[in-house]
């Protein structure tokens, strides 16, 4: 039932470009771009119980890396793909360093949030002060507050006309990556690895006593989530061909928390749906020209925390499933009379 619905949605999304205009596809791509960061945070926060406030640091690092590398190497050959790989390796390296520093250094609970938030603010502040011409890497200017722009799209040399990933083809690429990441994460959380993560979330000391290397698991899950945040960063940079320091700031850092909390942080599917829905909602509000988008996001987060702490979708599903079970369990009049007899 779930898998046929999943297949139908993916298929519908894949053939969608034949029915709607380019503008709608560009928008849809934009919503999907954020899903990777949200899924990563769901894994880190929902499954492993580590609240990272600073996933946007990895997002920004990957975006800037793609900008610097691709502007320097140009779009010839497979260099843009090389830039893509480098942009995923950079957040991986940062996550290993930061994660080792935190988890092997006994940083726990709220302090993980403080360290990660501090790192993303350091990045934002640092990038914001790179306006001068001395902040140039090769031929790429970092450009301070205004951010970098005009990086080349992903390109495959293909005879006379190279294959350029933009518009519909970029949408397909993002969709394919999204499906792969979602399925991969589902396999991961349902495996032994996922069970250990939940055990650590519920009680790290007990998991340690049972012989699991808690710190290694925490480091691994943090690295996976952060590379996914980086993936969002690269795709975002490719999507709009720009990246700015404010994509890492306090407000930007709050958004992934909101999506993940709103859907249900302990459920990948709920996170995915909430991310697409809420980015769509923010955009709708912004397009209408009013400034209420952030107020709505804040209000949704507040309502969820107060009334549906497990997340909106998860709470609704539990209610529905409970009702269905109750209906099945309800004895029909016939059987009731036969048992009483």
């Amino acid at each position, binding site marked *: 039932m779930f898998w046929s619905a999943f297949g139908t949605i993916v298929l519908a999304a894949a053939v969608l470009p034949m029915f709607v205009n380019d503008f709608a596809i560009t928008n849809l791509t934009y919503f999907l771009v954020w899903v990777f960061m949200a899924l990563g945070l769901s894994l880190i926060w929902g499954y492993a119980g580590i*609240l990272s406030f600073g996933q946007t640091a990895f997002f920004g690092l990957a975006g800037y890396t793609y900008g610097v590398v691709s502007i320097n190497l140009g779009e010839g050959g497979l260099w843009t793909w090389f830039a893509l790989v480098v942009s995923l390796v950079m957040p991986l390296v940062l996550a290993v360093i930061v994660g080792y*520093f*935190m988890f092997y*250094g*006994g*940083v*726990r*609970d*709220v*302090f993980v*949030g*403080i*360290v990660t938030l*501090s*790192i993303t*603010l*350091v990045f934002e*502040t*640092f990038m*914001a*002060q790179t306006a001068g011409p001395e902040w140039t890497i090769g031929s790429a200017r970092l450009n301070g507050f205004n951010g970098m722009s005009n990086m080349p799209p992903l390109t495959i040399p293909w005879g006379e006309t190279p294959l350029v990933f933009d518009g519909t083809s970029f949408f397909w690429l993002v969709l394919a990556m999204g499906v792969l990441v979602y399925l991969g994460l589902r396999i991961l959380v349902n495996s032994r690895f996922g069970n250990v993560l939940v055990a650590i979330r519920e009680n790290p000391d007990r998991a340690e006593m049972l012989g699991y290397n808690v710190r290694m698991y925490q480091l691994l899950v943090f690295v996976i989530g952060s590379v996914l945040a980086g993936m969002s960063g690269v795709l975002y940079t490719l999507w709009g061909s720009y990246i700015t320091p404010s994509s890492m*700031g*306090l*407000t930007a850092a*709050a958004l992934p*928390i*909101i999506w993940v*909390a709103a859907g249900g942080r302990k459920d990948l599917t709920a996170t995915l749906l909430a991310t697409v829905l809420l980015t769509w909602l923010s955009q709708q509000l912004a397009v209408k020209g009013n*400034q*209420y*988008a*952030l*107020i709505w*996001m*804040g*209000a949704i*987060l*507040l309502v969820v*925390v*107060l009334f549906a*702490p497990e997340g909106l979708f998860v709470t609704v599903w539990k209610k529905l499933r409970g009702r269905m079970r109750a209906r099945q369990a309800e004895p029909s009049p016939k059987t009731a009379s036969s048992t009483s007899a």
Partner: protein
Amino acid sequence: MTFLVQAYAFLYQFADSFAFLVLCGLGLAIIFGMMGVINLAHGEFIMCGAYVTVLTARAGLPLPFAMLAGTLAAGLVGLILEFLIIRRLYHRLFDSIVATWALSLIATQGMLIVAGPSIEGLKTPFGSFELGEYSFSVYRALLPLVALSLLAALYWLFVRTRFGRYSRATIEDADMARALGANTSRIYSQTFGLGAALAGLTGALYAPTMTAVPTMGQAFIVQSFVTVVVSGADVMLGLAPSAAVLAFIQSLLTKSYGQLIGQIGLLLTVIIVVRVLPKGISGWVLQRNAGH
């Protein structure tokens, strides 16, 4: 002479930064120390204090009363929010932090819609004095004294008054305090209100020196939480030394490399402190004393 002027300029910069960090940190530190909640809407309470001060002062209220109005307004908002929201989340630490983040987003954007991108500010009182080639603001030179007297007043509040004794008992062991008859939930809400009022006072004190904008909270929140994390949970013990250390680092870096590098220096310091002294300066001092 020029050396003396240079030295005074550095001292002024240091004291200015010290006052800023103490005033920023106070409200946040009290809430953090009492409940372990990092109030991410702290900056917006400061913004609230600043706005009320500017608006009432421009409506004709003398500045000291306008500042009082700003302080009380922020405190009142704090009490209301505690009653409506924070109270329900005390046993869920992460959720309470996330909820204050939501409040911060709502308040910043709401103020932008209600009051526009900025409001006309106030004139800084008392003028300035000259020393060598530099000119210093008298008002800002007085702020470190205000910060120190506030610390003294809070020391008195926590050590000498009934509220102080009850609240220290609650920090020490909330269940035991409740068993002995302390109304801990009232103490929590009073503490939250006090923290919010102190944030409002900070906004009120800085209102004449800066333009009030809806996003001004963000400029304060980073400094505040840096100070509080380095200080640790015990405000009385940790806040002043933490602000002194951070002000030294910040004024040194700002003087040599500019304001943004000063900010980065603060953030890097906090990352290292979390790793080396997870309970901050006050936790370290208490641990050392317990060891002897």
